[in-house]
């Protein structure tokens, strides 16, 4: 089935409810109205999908820098303090002999957020240029971004429970650093970015459905 001839709901002048998936006829060409079944507002495409996704991706990219530069944990042992960044934590796990854990944290905390940002920027650019490349593959990429997003929260949980347990004053205590907040912000912002991106825009290229709806 080629893209140019595929009959989509938008080409047929129909609109699919984002909430309950009911297919309906728009009440008016510009204002589709509300879903007759569940009452949710009907839209051909997620409103301002590209603008919102860009804004969230850029905000996440900005937070990514302090998330990796600032310490996430500060360990105080007998009065002497030592700070660790995300990469410092990975190195600690590696040198303490648990390289599989080091690898998990490295993938979840460094590679996944970066990969998500690169993938979303790529999808935004191909959609904006109206590119008609391998759309199935691009949709798969989008689903992967949606699926793995939550796993980046791993390091935030590790830091939380490390802080909560190691409170053995005055021997040893662990406090969170400012990097944790930026790191959690990267995860939340990239998850919101993936949610606001409308994968149907990938398929709209070359079908004559104008991006006026996107």
């Amino acid at each position, binding site marked *: 089935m080629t893209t140019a001839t595929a009959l989509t709901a938008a080409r047929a002048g129909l609109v699919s409810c984002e909430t309950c998936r009911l297919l309906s006829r728009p009440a008016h060409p510009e204002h589709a109205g509300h879903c007759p079944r569940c009452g949710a507002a009907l839209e051909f495409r997620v409103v301002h999908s590209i603008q919102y996704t860009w804004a969230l991706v850029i905000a996440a990219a900005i937070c990514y820098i302090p998330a990796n530069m600032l310490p996430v944990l500060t360990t105080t042992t007998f009065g002497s303090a030592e700070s660790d960044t995300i990469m410092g934590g990975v190195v600690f796990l590696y040198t303490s002999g648990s390289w599989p854990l080091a690898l*998990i944290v490295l993938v979840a905390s460094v590679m996944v957020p970066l990969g998500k940002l690169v993938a979303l920027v790529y999808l935004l650019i191909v959609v904006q240029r109206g590119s008609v490349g391998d759309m199935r593959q691009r949709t798969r990429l989008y689903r992967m971004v949606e699926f793995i997003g939550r796993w980046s929260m791993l390091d935030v949980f590790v830091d*939380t*429970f490390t802080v909560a*347990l190691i409170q053995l004053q005055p021997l040893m205590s662990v406090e969170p650093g400012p990097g944790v907040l930026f790191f959690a912000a990267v995860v939340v912002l990239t998850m919101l970015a993936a949610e606001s991106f409308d994968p149907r825009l990938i398929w709209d290229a070359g079908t004559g459905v104008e991006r006026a709806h996107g």
Partner: protein
Amino acid sequence: MSGSSGRLAAAGETVACPDCDLLQHIPTLPPGAKARCPRCGHVLATRPSDPIDLPLALTATAVVVLIVANTMPLMAISAVGRHASTTILGGAYEMWMTGEQITAMIVAFCAVFAPGLYLLFMLAVLTAVRWPPAPHWVGEVLRWGLHMQPWSMYEVMLLGILVALIKIAELAMVDPGIGMYAVGVLVILFPAIAVSFDPREVWRRIEWVEDEVSAGHGGGDAIRTGVMR
């Protein structure tokens, strides 16, 4: 299959793929079958054998397990004669007390509130649709429940707890607590709820916002027009 679901289930249903917008007809599926979009591969429909009572039972179980997971200690450590233990919210509380209030709120939301709300909303929806037609606010509750789904990160938290445990094991004796085993059970229960649940069947059992008779809902597979408000 309930009476109200008869028409659509028997005739199949015309839908647009949520991922690529392709119009297609979903045939009546045999139990256990899946329908995928031929163009992009999105799973459009599944037909779990028991789409209401099984997820309801699993959800009720998960509520109990979630309460255990949140009230029992996750793990305890002992070093040089001193002991400390923590619960899930205890972790978030400690983050709050050490000055990371926003991070603490994100942790509490993803670890406790999102999974808890998801379960409560699902419990309400699945209970209500046992006696169709359910009032249309049930659809609103379902929408909120599904919004909570990506944010409930019990499985990410379990891995996070395990990594923290191994990190700390370098420094002190660590004992996993009952709370951690309960989180482990949730990791199995949450996907089981999602797999056994069929949102299409639930929507069929919920009353339409627009009056069904005047709009001709009873007649055929006619596509209806959006409502202006």
